[in-house]
């Protein structure tokens, strides 16, 4: 069973895993105040316990820069079948990373990290460890990730603190270890700039 965004948010809070500022919206009257609070650009995506791949349903809109665009977007997203609400988030930039966890039938809870974006599935450049992690193990995981040099600031990209990313991996490893009814989870993308923020999450129980 795929958890709703709200349920997922609760679990993240419990493990102090930082989520990008997000609001769940059902009516367009709620939008202006949110815009006032977080400003542009915005991202909107559908919330549904049944749709695994949002982009395939046209359920994600990025780079929203005006209230008009936002209102039109909201209306369209709410009209998609099986959609329970729309998540409105501040659009952040940085290095895209994917973090995951699952319960393996042989090894039990495992945690995963890889460089993100759509290339993750093509390149399969992901690194696994058994959960929970020790700090040094989390750092070594990042070290093993091919292309990890991008974290040190590449072509003007912001430098990412490795120990902060390691800390996030550590917390994720605790989560998958402790929450025994979770089968699998994806934080994709996690965007790492000055802060490292989970921008989307899917948790399957």
């Amino acid at each position, binding site marked *: 069973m795929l958890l709703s965004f709200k349920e997922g948010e609760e679990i993240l809070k419990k493990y102090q895993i930082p989520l990008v500022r997000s609001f769940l919206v059902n009516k367009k009257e709620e939008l202006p105040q949110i815009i006032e609070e977080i400003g542009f650009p915005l991202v909107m995506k559908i919330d549904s316990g049944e749709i695994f791949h949002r982009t395939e349903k046209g359920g994600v809109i990025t780079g929203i820069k005006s209230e008009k665009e936002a209102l039109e977007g909201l209306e369209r997203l709410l009209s998609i079948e099986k959609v329970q609400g729309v998540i409105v988030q501040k659009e952040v930039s940085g290095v895209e990373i994917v973090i995951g966890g*699952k319960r393996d039938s042989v090894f039990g809870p495992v945690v*995963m990290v*890889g460089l993100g974006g759509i290339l993750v*599935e093509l390149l*399969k450049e992901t690194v696994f460890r*058994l959960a929970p992690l020790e700090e040094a193990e989390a750092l070594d995981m990042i070290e093993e990730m091919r292309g990890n040099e991008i974290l040190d600031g590449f072509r003007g990209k912001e430098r990412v603190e490795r120990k902060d990313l390691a800390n996030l991996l550590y917390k994720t490893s605790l989560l998958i270890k402790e929450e025994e009814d979770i089968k*699998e989870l*994806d934080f994709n993308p996690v965007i790492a700039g000055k802060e490292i923020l989970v921008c989307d999450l899917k948790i399957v129980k």
Partner: protein
Amino acid sequence: MNKLFNPQKIALIGATDRENSVGEGIMKNLLQGEKEVFPVNPFKEEVLGKKTYSRILDIEEEIDLAIIAIPAEKVKEAAIDCKEKGVGAVIIISAGFKETGEEGKKREEEIKEILEGIPLLGPNCLGVIRPSKGLNASFAPVSPKAGKIALISQSGALIDSILSSSEEENYGFSVVISLGNAAGLGLEDFIKWASEDEETKVISLYIEGVEKGRDFFKALKESKKPIVVLKGGKSEKGREAVGLHTGSLAGEGKIFSGVLRQTRVKEVSSLEELFDLSKTLAWQSPFRGGVGIVTNGGGAGVLMTDYLEGISLPRGEFENPLDVLGDASPEKYREALEKVFSEEKIGVVTVILTLQIITDPEGVAREIVEIREKYQKPVVTVFMGGGEKINKAVSFLEEKGIPNFKDPFRAAKVLKALNQGL
């Protein structure tokens, strides 16, 4: 497990002198050692000069180890006898159990229950070899020499080929264990045992799959000896995917490799690499510091430098690689070795030798052995090519615990694996 690895009195159920049979192979291997062997076979009076017994219960003496090599349907009966006899350990060589399907699986469960409490190896395995104790309780066609490598393998046939190449490559074993179906003792138990074993300096594993992932993880993590692993069956097909990225990316090999790295175990990708590394770890220690290269061939030095990319090649009062040129005599090598070994930043030395018209490989080998004694730094050699002169020198080096690789690529891989930073 002492009864398994160092038994004094051994019964072989299924002993026979029928040529090229498993029962004959084990019998012959057992008789090579100095153990007392009691063949059990109700249809024969005598096997290879030894009086036979029709059941293990007919033997008066106590039995430390019973080896069962009879058709699968009859194993249950033999197991009941072993239990009643109170043997110290059991090896079941016979196939026809879990690996064959439901019926075999049931048979295996039954036997496991009967032998509860007795150390059990197998079924469906090649057996066990402990060269230093004169024990070859297997049907391997070769008896390997004693050494410091503990080989534990899920494939019996691979063991055969490894043992035959070990002769040429000059390495030996503290123990060779063929796991088979691991109905009793499993991979984790043997890793733990080898980690405590005084003869073992390195544990080499060939693994296709693990069942108790966390026990395996713990055994690796707690091992007091370095471990090298070759994993077979690493196809990247995902399993139990529930529709998310993580599941589809979690191929068996990915998680397995992660576990190895997490426990600081070396993973290799070929049999050659498994033993290049095991042999080196059996004889030498991992090192800190840079690599010093001494060579009498420019090209070989260049290749080695390429292969060692990412590893420090410090210089002192010398170039690195230090080319002693094609006409180098043992004395010339000695002079160069002295410079490189004495340099503090150098943690390990690799000596390359290509056979040229006036080269004296044995003379150079002797200089290497002497200088290593003096400085106590690890050294690996690359005496390239073959022929009598090279082979003699290589045998001399390897007798002294200096591993030789005929290709700088193989030596570089080993050096990279053993490098623990500066």
